[in-house]
């Protein structure tokens, strides 16, 4: 760009603005930045390469390499008794949890937003604090015990309930923000015309806060879809296990791992969250404004 003279003086004496050393440093820092970004790109892309190549390789190995293209590997999914059914289990767990979380959180958030309950803010912060402290990892022992006593071992409903309990506080918190931001005038006029609270909820509040409900729903699905620990602890046997657990058993159990199956299954299992992410980021922009929560 600029004429970079080689005679850069010692860095310590401050050159006046616009002189050559500043330009040199500028060019160098630009180059440094590109090199750094390329390294970052390499670091983050490298582990993902295998996921992109192996499923389509005629003879998949553990090394990522240019595939000799085939779609035959996907037949391995049909041959394995648990591959496709585990994805269905994941859908079941994710959908069940999302419905429960969105419904219960919306009801609670609406009540907290519209009615002056004493100690409301303290309650909300207390719940949020609780949900960030009481993680599945820190309470796996009592959760297991509890599930055992409530007869929820090996029950998908048990997994759904436990996951919902963990997600609800943050969901209520997010939805209350959405509810607080919507004007109450529609509700008031609907009430004047004799609508019942549940009607108002269904026909006025829900349509208005739909973006909030969608946000919480997507967030719940993403959380459950990848969750390994809770179903791993509670579900026995592969019939009810979701994809997260089946994936783990595929590469840990028994002899030589079937790479055709592993690679295609990984891809199929990853695809929904990847698509969801693309959808969300193209529609709403995947950014933080100020700060917040995963």
């Amino acid at each position: 760009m600029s004429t970079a003279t080689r005679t850069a003086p010692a860095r310590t004496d401050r050159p006046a603005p616009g002189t050559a050393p500043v330009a040199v440093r500028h060019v160098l820092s630009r180059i440094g930045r590109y090199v750094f970004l390329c390294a970052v790109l390499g670091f983050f892309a490298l582990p993902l390469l295998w996921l992109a190549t192996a499923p389509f390789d005629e003879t998949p190995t553990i090394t990522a390499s240019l595939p000799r293209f085939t779609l035959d590997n996907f037949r391995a999914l049909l041959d394995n008794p648990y591959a496709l059914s585990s994805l269905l289990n994941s859908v079941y767990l994710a959908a069940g949890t999302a419905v429960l979380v969105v419904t219960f959180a919306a009801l609670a958030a609406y009540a907290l937003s519209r009615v002056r309950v004493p100690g409301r803010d303290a309650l909300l912060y207390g719940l949020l604090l609780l949900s960030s402290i009481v993680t599945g990892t820190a309470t796996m022992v009592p959760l297991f015990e509890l599930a055992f006593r409530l007869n929820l071992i090996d029950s998908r409903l048990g997994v759904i309930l436990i996951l919902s309990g963990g997600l609800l506080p943050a969901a209520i918190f997010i939805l209350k923000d959405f509810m607080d931001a919507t004007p109450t005038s529609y509700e008031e006029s609907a009430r004047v015309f004799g609508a019942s609270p549940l009607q108002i909820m269904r026909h006025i509040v829900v349509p208005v806060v739909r973006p909030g409900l969608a946000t919480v729903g997507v967030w719940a699905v993403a959380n459950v879809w990848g969750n390994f620990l809770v179903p791993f602890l509670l579900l026995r046997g592969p019939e009810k296990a979701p994809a997260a657990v089946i994936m783990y058993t595929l590469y840990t159990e028994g002899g030589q791992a079937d790479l055709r199956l592993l690679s295609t299954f990984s891809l199929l299992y990853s695809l929904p969250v990847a698509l969801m992410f693309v959808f969300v980021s193209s529609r709403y922009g995947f950014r933080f404004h100020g700060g917040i929560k995963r």
Partner: protein
Amino acid sequence: MKGRRRATGAAPDAAGLGRARATGFLVPGMVLILLFLVVPAAWTIYLGVTNYRLTGLAAANPEVVGLDNYTRALTDERFRSSLVLTLQFVLGSAVIGQAGLGFAIAYALRDRRGPLRRLVEGFVLLSWILPSSVVAFLWIALLDRDGGTLNALLGIPGTAWLLDHPMLSIIVFNTWRGTAFSMMLYAAALENVPRSHLETARLAGAGTWQQLRDVVFPRIRGHVLTNLLLISLWTFNDFAPFLITAGGPEQRSEILPVYVYKVALSGGELGFGAAISFVMLLINLVIALVYLRMLGRRKETA
């Protein structure tokens, strides 16, 4: 706690809900939270002072053994080494790895729009959103001794990363896995730093370090603290390393979550495991309280 039903008739809220119905709206969510967050937390405390086991005599009628589990933990070599490994894991992968790399990426991309930024951000975010059992296998494949892509690239076949350097492996893995959050948080924070201030500092001859120290950091201090506390909390509770090394070899990557799992659920010592869990809960509580206090203070000054 909530809903003293003194209100006569409908409270003056928009939908005419009234306290009674509002309480009704709260109940389903609160029941789930009570049952699956509050009860487990409280139960951890109780279980931690018993000799409860998964099977055998102590499973039928557990006895209260007081603080035995805690004194045992203190003298247990395996617990102490697990604690040290956890500290390494949190410091290495969250504080240094995720926060450092996340900031560096956000800073390098700060005034950039266009395909390069989208590409970098896309890959960083992808590693964050993929299911953990999938990325765990991707890393096992990457680091494989014989056929791993990393060894093939570096031209050093036969290096058993997961056996020889298990901690380093899971630290780098978790850095890769979680940098996205820090990157996005710092990207948002850097938008609060006026470009003109940076420009002025640069023209005055300040180097990158000086700019960061004198211009950037004072303005994003709150974000840095938020970031460090949240990622420390998450990393401390991360179970994903279990999917890669399962704590091995020889417990050399056995961080606390994995340790609890092995002692309590594989080993069947639920009482002892609960005691360790309680220690984890306390550590979580400390991190979370520091975080909340800080948020409160920031709100006051704002």
